Each structure stands twice: as structure tokens, then as C-alpha cells.
């Protein structure tokens, strides 16, 4: 019965022929030997070969093993070439090795790999979330050196009245408060100047197509004051941030009461 199992099957015979000539048979033998240590059932193809080589020496080989071997070879298919496949097989086998209960080695490797990827992604995400923009940090308590500007602008749509010229009048106070709010708002929302801005004050209203005089105060930190004076808090910059604000307002607001003529804007540094 055992012989039948081998002979009736064409493939084992062929392998037998090829293996017989060279060292391949030896290597497969060796592998078989190594595999025996583990004693796993799927290693039977090797066993068959060995048996094919030495049929006479193992006449008492029980039919069970051979049958199983033939079956296993069937599963492997007709493309069985021992030498090349053996290394791939070995890797497959090793990967399928049971590490712990049903957990196989390939699962462990895959898990470790995914873990590494996850760690990288999380750390990158954290990096961008935790990232602190140094330019947004400042300590206002260090801003001690004042810098002031004054100037004037025209409100061509307002009519000048005697009441407005008196600083204490209700009307004058309301208008001044409104304009101060506007100036303070525009400088506070400026990304570059906002942090240095301290206060805006409307000092007077004058006749002559309605002119308002204003005064702006900024505070700067002592250590960078030279650079700030020359660049960020230069007259050009403070003036143009105001002018730009007025130009942007120009279109929708032109007919409004509070319209400020951008061309009339004047500003100078107060010493």
C-alpha cells in the first residue's frame, strides 16, 4: 500500500529522479531531519522523498505516513521544485510558527510594524498640535518704553457745530468715544502692531471741513526698542496700517457719516 501511494503518483517519482543525481537530495534530507525536531505534520513531503530514496531500507514504513505525504504533495501542487522552494517554505514555516497559543510569528511582526507607524503618526500630530509659534508669545509686562504719534484726519460727511468744538459737550464726547474705539480696534487687530498698542485718544475737533486730531500711544520692550523704532513701530508702518484700514473701508462706507478720507490722514511722531 505504501508503494502504491508513491508509484501511482507521478510527481514524487519525478522528484525522485532529479533528486537522485545531486546534492539536492542531501539538502532536502537534511531539512527533513531538521524539521523532524519540530515534528510538525506539514513537513511530510521531505519525509516522502527520503522514503522514495530508500524504499528498501524502510519496508516497514507504515502506510499512514505515506498516504499523508502524497496528500500533502497534492496540496502543494505540481510546481514542486525542492531546492528553490525550500528557502521560501522555510520562511513561510517560520512565519507561521506559533509563538503563543494561536498567535503566529507573522502576526507579531505585523503588530510591531503597525505599532511603529502609529507611534510616528501620533508623535507628528502631537508635534504640530503642541507647536508653539514663538512669534505669538510676548510678555506685555516688559513693554515699558512709550512711543506716541499724533496727527489728524478729516470726516468730510460730518457738519461742524459749535457743540462739537467744546470738548466737554455730550455730542463731542460720544463722537470722540466712537472714533477712539475705531482706532483702538484697528490697531489691536493688527498682527504686527496689536501687542504694542496702548491707547488711542481723540484730542480735539476742529473746523475746516471737520478735522479730528488724534494721538496714539504704543509701548515697547526695552531690549528691542531700536529695531522696533526703525521698523515695526516706525512712522511709516503705523501710518500705513491706518491708511490701509481707511482704504479698505472706502468702498462700502463712502457715504456714511463716519467716513474718514484716507487722503486727509496725517501723522507725525511725538517727541
Amino acid at each position, binding site marked *: 500500500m505504501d508503494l502504491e501511494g508513491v508509484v501511482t503518483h507521478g510527481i514524487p517519482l519525478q522528484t525522485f529522479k532529479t533528486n537522485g543525481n545531486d546534492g539536492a537530495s542531501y539538502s532536502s534530507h537534511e531539512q527533513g531531519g531538521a524539521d523532524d525536531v519540530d515534528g510538525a505534520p506539514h513537513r511530510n513531503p521531505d519525509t516522502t522523498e527520503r522514503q522514495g530514496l530508500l524504499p528498501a531500507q524502510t519496508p516497514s514504513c507504515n502506510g499512514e505516513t505515506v498516504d499523508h505525504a502524497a496528500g500533502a504533495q497534492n496540496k502543494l501542487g505540481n510546481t514542486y521544485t525542492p531546492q528553490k522552494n525550500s528557502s521560501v517554505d522555510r520562511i513561510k514555516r517560520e512565519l507561521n510558527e506559533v509563538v503563543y497559543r494561536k498567535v503566529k510569528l507573522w502576526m507579531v511582526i505585523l503588530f510591531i510594524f503597525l505599532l511603529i507607524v502609529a507611534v510616528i503618526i501620533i508623535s507628528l500630530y502631537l508635534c504640530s498640535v503642541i507647536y508653539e509659534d514663538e512669534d505669538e508669545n510676548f510678555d506685555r509686562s516688559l513693554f515699558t518704553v512709550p512711543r506716541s504719534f499724533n496727527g489728524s484726519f478729516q470726516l468730510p460727511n460730518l457738519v461742524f457745530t459749535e457743540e462739537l468744538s467744546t470738548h466737554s459737550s455730550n455730542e463731542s464726547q460720544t463722537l470722540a468715544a466712537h472714533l477712539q474705539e475705531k482706532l483702538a480696534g484697528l490697531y489691536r487687530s493688527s498682527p504686527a502692531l496689536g501687542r504694542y498698542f496702548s491707547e488711542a485718544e481723540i484730542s480735539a475737533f476742529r473746523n475746516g471741513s471737520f478735522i479730528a486730531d488724534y494721538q496714539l500711544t504704543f509701548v515697547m520692550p526695552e531690549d528691542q526698542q531700536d529695531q522696533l523704532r526703525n*521698523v515695526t513701530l516706525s512712522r511709516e508702518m503705523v501710518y500705513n496700517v491706518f491708511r490701509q484700514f481707511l482704504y479698505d473701508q472706502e468702498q462700502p462706507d463712502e457715504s456714511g457719516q463716519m467716513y474718514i478720507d484716507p487722503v486727509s490722514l496725517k501723522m507725525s511722531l511725538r517727541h
Partner: protein
Amino acid sequence: MGESCDNFTDLNLSHCFMGTALYVRLLLYTRSNLDCGHELNHHRLSSQPLFNLSRPTAFVIHGYRPTGAPPIWIDHIVHLLAEQEDMNVIVVDWNKGAANLNYFTAVTNTREAAYNLTGFILTMQEEGASLTSVHLIGVSLGAHLAGFVGANLKGKIGRITGLDPAGPMFTSATPEERLDPSDAMFVDVLHTDMNSFGLTGAHGHIDFYANGGIDQPGCPKTIFAGKSYFVCDHQRSVFLFLCALNRTCSLTGYPCSSYSDFLEGRCLQCEAFKPASCPVLGYDVSQWKETLLQLGQTQVFFSTTATLPYRKLIYRVDMVTWNQYLRWGVVFIRLHSGRNFTEVRLDQKLLRFEQYTSTRLLAQFDDDLQQVQKISMRINTGNVIGPRYKIRLLRIRFTPLERPERPLMCRFDIILEENMEVAFRPLPCNSRL
């Protein structure tokens, strides 16, 4: 008027296969016979009454003709030259000699053709013409031919214009073996294809390098485009010159040591030419002759678009940032006017943004928008992962070059967040304080 016209020699491929022996014909065109050339007798100049030696004379010299067909630009250049000045335009037809499958034969023929032409110009001089009023315009191999004529006449002729002087067989030539500034009192050269048919280097008192002088926009990049793959870049020199003669494109060249420096905005100074502007390509570049002769050899650069009128709208952009730490990034800028917009991607090189230091760049737009109503910008610092950086601008200023009548545009206090488009309305810069 009954007279027969002499046309440019038309040959075909079979002539090229057989090879042609050199035969130089000189076809005269003047304002009174723009469409009907008259062949000149090389020795008896007075036999042609239209040839007035008191007028300036421009010779148009073509290059190698691998197919034997007449150059397509001949009529065009004759008309445009006659428009510049009342002059004699002489087309030097050496098609027999230039039409050879073997390029080396054509190269050898240039020497002989040059002797022929030299003889003719000497005859002109004997008849009373002034050498300074002679202008040779040579295309490709014709540029070297013009150079040989100039050298034969000891550099005494007025001007030589070389349109992409031929490169093959001339790459290791000494100045005597190619076009060089000593060949005429003024030599201007335009380069468009230095990496294949054109010659690398500087060969005139002024050398114009269109788009760096190597590859032209709109020219095919692969061999699948057929013939134009080979000739497009080289031929562009002629088209640019024609366009300049036509005054449809005014192409200003900026003196610089390299095209990349020019693109980085490092070479926009024209002080050397004051009170004139930087040299403009074309017939009138002779206006800069005196300054250029003093400067020695000048190399000037400009960029073009892919099609007529080739001109780009150039802005110098200056930015000042207040970020504490150094930042690098590339910038994309769009100018809007109504629904139209034109875009420039300055992504060849990372720009350096240093606190309170001006970052300059050259923005060359393909379309010329009359009035810019809106500008939008986007930055990219190049880091794919990690935080989104911000570039904090104190001021950005757009200076239109070559258009002094247009206003400078400014904007103040902007934050550009990585990959976020920021749009703003430009203000006039001239602030009255």
C-alpha cells in the same frame, strides 16, 4: 511694372542629397520694390538704379538649409527692415552652398561665401558707400559668415547682428574662426538655443539671452513633435527679432552674470545706462552702442512667454518680515483684474525670509493686466508634515519695471499662513506723511 522679379533660390531635398556648389546671389529690396527683389550684379553696381549707395544697407544672411526650401521669414524681415529706415535691404541668397545634407560642406562654404560678400562690399565702398552704414544680419551659420566678412574688412563695418550663431563645428572655435566683437564696430547677438544648434558663450558687444538662451517656452520637449523639436528653439531667435523690429514686443535685457541670478531678482539695476533704460532687443539697440562699447562685453537676460507678443509683465517684489526666526519658502502670486487673473509660481528656489530684512524677488506674469484690483498670495515652506508656519509680512511692495507710468503697489501687515491663499487690495505706495 512689367519687370521680372528675382526670387530666393528654391531648392528641394534632391538637391540636398546631390549636394550643391556655392553660388551667391544678392537680391535687392528697397521701399520702392518691397515685394519684388532684383538680383544685383556683383561688379557693376550702377546697373541697378534702385541701389542707392548713399542710403544705409542691411544684408540679411541665412544659415544652413537642410531642406533647400527658402527661409519662411525672408519676406517678413525685408518688410520690417525697410520700415525702420529708408535703406537697401540685400538678401544674401547662398542657398546653393547652404543646402547640403552634409552640414560640414555648408560650414566650409561660409568662408568662400564670406570672400564673395567681402568683394561686393569693397566694390560698394569704391563706388562711394560708407562701411559704417553697412549692417549685416546673420542667422545661425549666417552669423559666422557675417563675422568672417567683418573680419575680412578688419572690423570696419558698422554693425553685425547675430541671431543664435550656429554651435555645431564652432564650439571650440577661436574668435577668428567665429563671430566675435572685433568683427564690426558694434556686434549684437541674440541667443535662444545654446544647448543644441546655437553657440554657447558671449560673442558680441552685447549678448541677449532669451530665457537664459537655452530652452524657449512653448517649444516641444520631446522628439515626438517632429521637426519643430529640432528647430523651434533655434528659430525663436528670428521670431523674437522680427517681433522686436515690429515693435509689438519690447524686450528689455537686464545685465547679469547668469539667468538664475536674474530670476532671483538680483540684476534689475540699469544705472549703468542712465538716463536710458536697460538695452531693448531689436534694431534700435544701437542707441546703447556708446555705453556698451565702454562697458566691454555685456550679457543681458530676459524672459519671454511662449507666444506673440512674447513680452512678460515684470514686477520687482520686495517683502519685509518680522518673524523672529529665519524662514524659507516659495511664493505663488496672482494678480486679479475683474475676472481675469495672471499667476506666477516662484517655486524654483526657496526664498529666505529674515526678520526686518528685505526679501526681493522677480515676478514675471504672462498677461498684462491694465489695472490690478486684487492680489492674492500663497506661501509654501516645503515641510509636508508638522506645524503650519506663518510668514508675517510688515510690508510688500510691487514695483512695475519697464512701465514707469504704472503705480507702485503696496500692502502692509499681512500674515501668510502656509498653503492658505490670502487676498488683498493693493494701495498706492506713495504715502504722504
